[in-house]
């Protein structure tokens, strides 16, 4: 008898929990995940929140999400401006993951964390100053990011050395965003893969 009452209470609690969790699910936001992360929904399902990837990362790039991540609480993420993914040759984070929430990365070009986007209004290279920091620091220099030379509009003496992203090649590591000399707003920012489809 007591068992059935408990079962009933659990069912009621279960329905309430379901509604609450669905609400939390809506609160989840796209964020930069470590290399090899599956698409966001699959990632939230597969990640056991064990933190092994965090401990495996030699650069302490991976942070563990707090309550403001909704259902993503306890999952790994990266804040590129503070500390990007340094694209280790052997991907210790991916190797540490027990559940294949992070998987399928053999070489750097397999990584698809997101795509860097340049804010031409903030980028000083587009204003005519030579900067090139993002270009020089990109581990995939001349592939993911190139410099485009042109004359400054309405000025036939000075040239523009403007960084341009190749979205096909950019892996979204965020090193450029970390190194960008302009802040507030940062002139180059990685759009996490999941959010890209919203734009």
């Amino acid at each position, binding site marked *: 008898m007591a068992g059935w009452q408990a079962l009933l209470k659990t069912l009621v609690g279960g329905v309430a929990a379901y509604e609450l*969790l669905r609400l939390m699910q809506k609160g989840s936001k796209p964020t930069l995940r470590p290399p090899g992360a599956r698409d966001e929904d699959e990632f939230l*399902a597969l990640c056991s929140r064990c933190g092994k990837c965090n401990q495996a990362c030699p650069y302490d790039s991976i942070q563990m999400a707090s309550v403001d991540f909704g259902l993503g609480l306890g999952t790994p993420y990266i804040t590129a401006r503070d500390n990007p993914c340094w694209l280790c040759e052997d991907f210790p984070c991916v190797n540490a993951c027990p559940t294949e929430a992070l998987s399928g990365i053999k070489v750097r070009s397999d990584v698809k964390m997101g795509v860097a986007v340049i804010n031409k209004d903030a980028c000083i290279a587009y204003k005519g100053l030579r900067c090139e920091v993002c270009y020089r620091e990109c581990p995939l220099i001349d592939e993911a990011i190139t410099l485009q030379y042109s004359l400054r509009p309405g000025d036939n003496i000075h040239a523009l050395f403007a960084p341009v992203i190749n979205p096909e090649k950019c892996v979204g590591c965020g090193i450029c965003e970390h190194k960008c000399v302009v802040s507030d707003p940062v002139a180059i920012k990685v759009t996490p893969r999941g959010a890209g489809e919203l734009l």
Partner: protein
Amino acid sequence: MRASVKKWMILRRTVQILILLLFLSPLFLVKVEGDNFFYGSLASSQIFGIQLSDPLGALQVTLAAKELHWGYLGSALLILTAYLLLSGRVFCSWVCPVNTLLETTDLLRKKLKLPDKRFARNTKVYVMLAVLGLSFAIGVPVFEIISPIGSVMRNLLFLWGIGLFFLTAIVLFDLLVSKRGWCRYFCPVGGFYQLIGRFGLFRVRIDHDKCVHCQQCKKVCFAEPSILEPAITGKESFVSAGDCSLCGACVDVCSHQALTLGLRPYNQPAQAGKSMTTNP
């Protein structure tokens, strides 16, 4: 007669501390050649290259993702087998950091007069089933998010402030509403281990000739005092309930040496079969 030294308590405290030190070791051990001999959390860890994962967590992830990953499931099977052999809830009193915390809450209860609301102890099995059902329905390993065990681990290992709210609620609940309430009645991990707990090879055994029915053991039981009842009344020759965490507190407290902790005896009286099916 005088109660002997609390040898199980001493042994258990030692193991609890060693386990905490093991999990915290990546924080203070210098990495040898870039790799620690141990890292991870109770959700999943790695020791000397061997992967170990929490079975209930693995079930949730598998149901949520609707995918099978054999390496991961294998690492959970290792842990599952260990607890199947020992007795499921050994995890609770010897390993779980939430229990370590709540044992201190329990000490506070001794100093104050506080109410103790009782619930059905099988509730935690239903909570466990609900957790699995919800993980499947929502596609997220539900308990891994709010789990107080997870938040203790994450807060110790990664940074303070991750998901402390649920943990705080549990501490308050245990303190103000129900003695050891979370572990006794609601924790799905406890529920999971309760289910497999009755098969364990180790049990609390009773010597009916020595037992004087003083009920001291029931006062200290971590799991739920009622699980000792069949043994005391002579229905069982050992505590068969899957709830028993083999904490040894009852053995320590019994001043008549009627209780021992050891291998499961074969001579369970016939009527015990009934109580075993009704008390998982």
